[in-house]
Every structure is written in structure tokens, then in C-alpha cells.
């Protein structure tokens, strides 16, 4: 048995549409998949073989993608299938997401730079002794400028910042993944993901 079996590490995601009038519509509610990257990160932490600062083991960013699938909801998944690949796709001209570029560790190699959306520290909440909630807000103006009109967001992943302590090129690693029913993002609403992980 490994640490995941003992602690029963699991997570849960809800997706909400948030409208200007404050109305919130729940559009998705399901468990998530903790992927092997979480084990890699924790092994680096407890084996003292990775970064020397705890900040590099924190989950501080996420990606949204457009070609997810249930086949990816397995522990071996190490990247989104179709992560948004440009600044324009994430924020267009008026989006408020804080977007940053970095490489990505994908199982055995470091991939080329890709885009992430940052999770503000105030959106990371301890909700009890063994649970942490990440509130990911994709504002009205973000993620609207996708590849074409028939493109829908349908996958999301959480990333640990740089557990391997790679320097000078840090490489975030995917730790949790979720495929959800397709949503055509528009400026009519913001998307709010409430993602809780229990340890």
C-alpha cells in the first residue's frame, strides 16, 4: 500500500456559472482524479530530494483545456489533452486571470513552455484539518477567445509549482485532473471551480 491508499487522498470538484446578478448555477459536481504527479511531489518533499523551499510544493496554478476525456481520468495522466495554448485563449483582451508561462514536467521529461493561470493565495482555503479547497475563478472575459466557435472547455488540472526544484527552468507538475461536461464559455458568466482535496 502507498500513502494514497492509507490516507485515501481524494478530491471533489464543482463547477458553477456565476452571472452578473449574483445568480450561481451549478453545472457539474463530481470527484476528481489525483494523478501520480502528487506522489512524485510528496516523495520529493519527504525524501528531501527536490526543492528546498516549501513554496515549490504548493499547488499554485491550474490549466484549462478543450479536449479532455474520461480516458484521461487515470493516475498516469501527466498533462491535459488540449490545454489552452496561448495568452489570447486565456485572457483575450479584457480577461482578469493572472496568466504565467512555464515549462511542465511530464513523467520523465520537461516539456516546452506552456501557459498556466495562477491561483491567488486567498483562494486557497483550509476547510478542516485534512482538507484544502482551491477556488478557481475564470472571470467573464477570460477563456472566451478559443480556437473556433465549436470549441468548448471540458478539462482542468491543478499543478504543483516546482517540486523537483529544477533550476534555472522550473517545471510545474500535474497533481489532479478533472474532465467535465463541455461548456461554451462566454462573457455572459464567470466560471467558478471549487476543488476540494482531502488528505
Amino acid at each position: 500500500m502507498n500513502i494514497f491508499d492509507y490516507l485515501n487522498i481524494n478530491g471533489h470538484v464543482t463547477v458553477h456559472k456565476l452571472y452578473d446578478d449574483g445568480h450561481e448555477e451549478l453545472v457539474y459536481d463530481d470527484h476528481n482524479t489525483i494523478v501520480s504527479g502528487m506522489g512524485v511531489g510528496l516523495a520529493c518533499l519527504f525524501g528531501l530530494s527536490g526543492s528546498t523551499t516549501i513554496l515549490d510544493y504548493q499547488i499554485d496554478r491550474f490549466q484549462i483545456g478543450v479536449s479532455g476525456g474520461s480516458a484521461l481520468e487515470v493516475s498516469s495522466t501527466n498533462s491535459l489533452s488540449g490545454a489552452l495554448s496561448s495568452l489570447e485563449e486565456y485572457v483575450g483582451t479584457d480577461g482578469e486571470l493572472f496568466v504565467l508561462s512555464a515549462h511542465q514536467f511530464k513523467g520523465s521529461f520537461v516539456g516546452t513552455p506552456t501557459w498556466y493561470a495562477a491561483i491567488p493565495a486567498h483562494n486557497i482555503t483550509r476547510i478542516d484539518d485534512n482538507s484544502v479547497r482551491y477556488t478557481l475563478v475564470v472571470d467573464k472575459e477570460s477563456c472566451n477567445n478559443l480556437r473556433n466557435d465549436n470549441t468548448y472547455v471540458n478539462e482542468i488540472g491543478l499543478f504543483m509549482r516546482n517540486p523537483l526544484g529544477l533550476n534555472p527552468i522550473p517545471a510545474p507538475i500535474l497533481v489532479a485532473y478533472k474532465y467535465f461536461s463541455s461548456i461554451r464559455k462566454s462573457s455572459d458568466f464567470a466560471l467558478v471551480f471549487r476543488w476540494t482535496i482531502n488528505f
Partner: protein
Amino acid sequence: MIVDTAGQVIVDMLTLSPSLSKIPSASAILDTSNFSFQAISYGKDVSGFNKHAHAVYDSNYSAIIVRSYESVSSYHSSAIGSAILRYNILPEYPDPLNTRLEQNNCRTVFSSLFSGLDVGHCANHVLLSSYSSVYQTLGCFAPSGGINYYVLSADHVSGSLGNILYSGTLSGAYNKYGIMDSSGFLTFAPLNGNQGRAKTATLEFTSGVLINLSPTFSSTGNIDLVWQLSAHDAATLLLYGGVYHFGLWCLDIKQMLKEGHKPPFAFNPLNNIRKYRLFAKKTFSRDLLYLNDAFGASAFKVLLEGLAAPYIAYQWTIRFL
């Protein structure tokens, strides 16, 4: 078993404020070592803390005195247990909610004269000056300078050792090297050079438990924790009732900060400010130090003198993948 408090350590780490990095006096809290493994402890059944060598005190002798109920010249804690009326050795079963190795009171109480620490596992009373005249009863580790032991064939009578089955002197390695505090926490070796990739050469165990990552670590995610129990420390633990639990501990950062301590939280065996939080425990239904007499040789003597190496090496693997 990985216990629930391990999850709390991880959530502590995930929710630590990044803004601490901008405060010079607080940024050391962000060091990885504050959240990694920091101690190992030895435990036994809760009743054992008032049996075995814990049950004998004689102000005439500063020695470990214990009665063996066996005719053989070993000391079997389980056999002794069954020979003592209404004493069944039963270490507490592991539970995810455990916060220490034994949840019930593990304090050694010798009549109304004195009582020891209650830390849930085997403490190291010899380091505390307040116990300087009674540590031989409270245990559970020998001083570096040595202490005599006497294993008797009949109940002890104050002022007289009576019929001695075997005796000798025990010198504790943990206290010699200053790697265990008074609460019985065996510290991890400080890092030097390659993080986590400590060598397993014999001499390096004198600085504590080592994290020994195998070459396949990146694919297996297995972390091997390795440490030694010297023959004399093993014999001492045996006379106090054996070893039925191992505990693996991380630091309790919140508690230390609450008490006003600031990082780095250095280990000091004589005045250890460190507070620990249980990460995992391993419980055994049989004494890990169980040895039988064989071919006419005393198992106890074999433990002290006949081992190929003067220590027992333990390895505990934690799997992350």
C-alpha cells in the same frame, strides 16, 4: 500505517502563506525540512511501562534489575508477560486516528515514590536531571557511561540481589552520540551535500536516522528510512519490555510557533524544543527483539556479544507511488 495527522502535515504545507518569504525573520518556516520526517520512536504495550525492569526499584543499587520467570538465560518479554498474573502483552492496534503509539497513559509509576514521563512510547529518562536517581527504573535507554543490569531468578528483595541469572553493563549508543532526546525521539541525521541521499556507511548512523534513496527512487517513489539500534540499546529495551511499535514523526510547526520558538528548530537532546506530530506507525504482535537460547548459548549474551555487527539495522520503506 500512515495516520491522519500525516494528512494534516501535508495540508499545513499546502496552505502555508507564500507571503512569509518576504519576511526575513519568518522565511525559514518555508524550509522543506520543517515538513519532512524528523524522528523515530520505539514503543511497547501500555502495561509494559509498569512491568519488567520498570517494576523494580532499589535505592541501594543504581542498576537495571529485572526478574526472569524463565529457566533459560534469555529475556522474553512475552514469556515474562504470560508469567505475570493477569498481564497479557497486547500493543494497541494501529488506528488512523492515532496521534501517538499508545493512546493510554504510559507513565511508569513506582508506588508513591516517583513517576515518569507519559509520551506514549519509550522515553529516555536518563537525560533528565530530575530523574537522576530513579532513571534505572523509568528507562528505557542506557546512559552512555554505562549502567549495570541484573537478571534475577526470583522476586527481588530490597537490599539484596539474590540469585542472579546473568548480569553485566550496558552502555547506550543513542546517548553516547546525543541523537535521542529525553522523550525518546531518535532524530534524523542532518543533511549534508546531496539532499536525502545519505550514505549508509556504519559511522554515519551516529548522527541519526538516514533517508536512503535508491537509484530507482524516481520511478518507484519509495523512500527508505534506515537506522541502527546498538546491541546495548537493544538489550536495554528488551529488559524494559521489548519493542512492539515504531513511530515515524514530523515536526509540529504550529505547536512550536505557538510556544514562541522560531526556526530553525535545531535538535538538542538535552533541551529539545522540537514538538513532533505522528506521521506513521508500525505495530508488531511479537517483540522485535525476541531471541531464543540455542546450542547452550544465552540469547541475551548473543545479542550483546555474538552479533556479526554490534547493532541491529532497521529499514522502513514509505511508498509514494
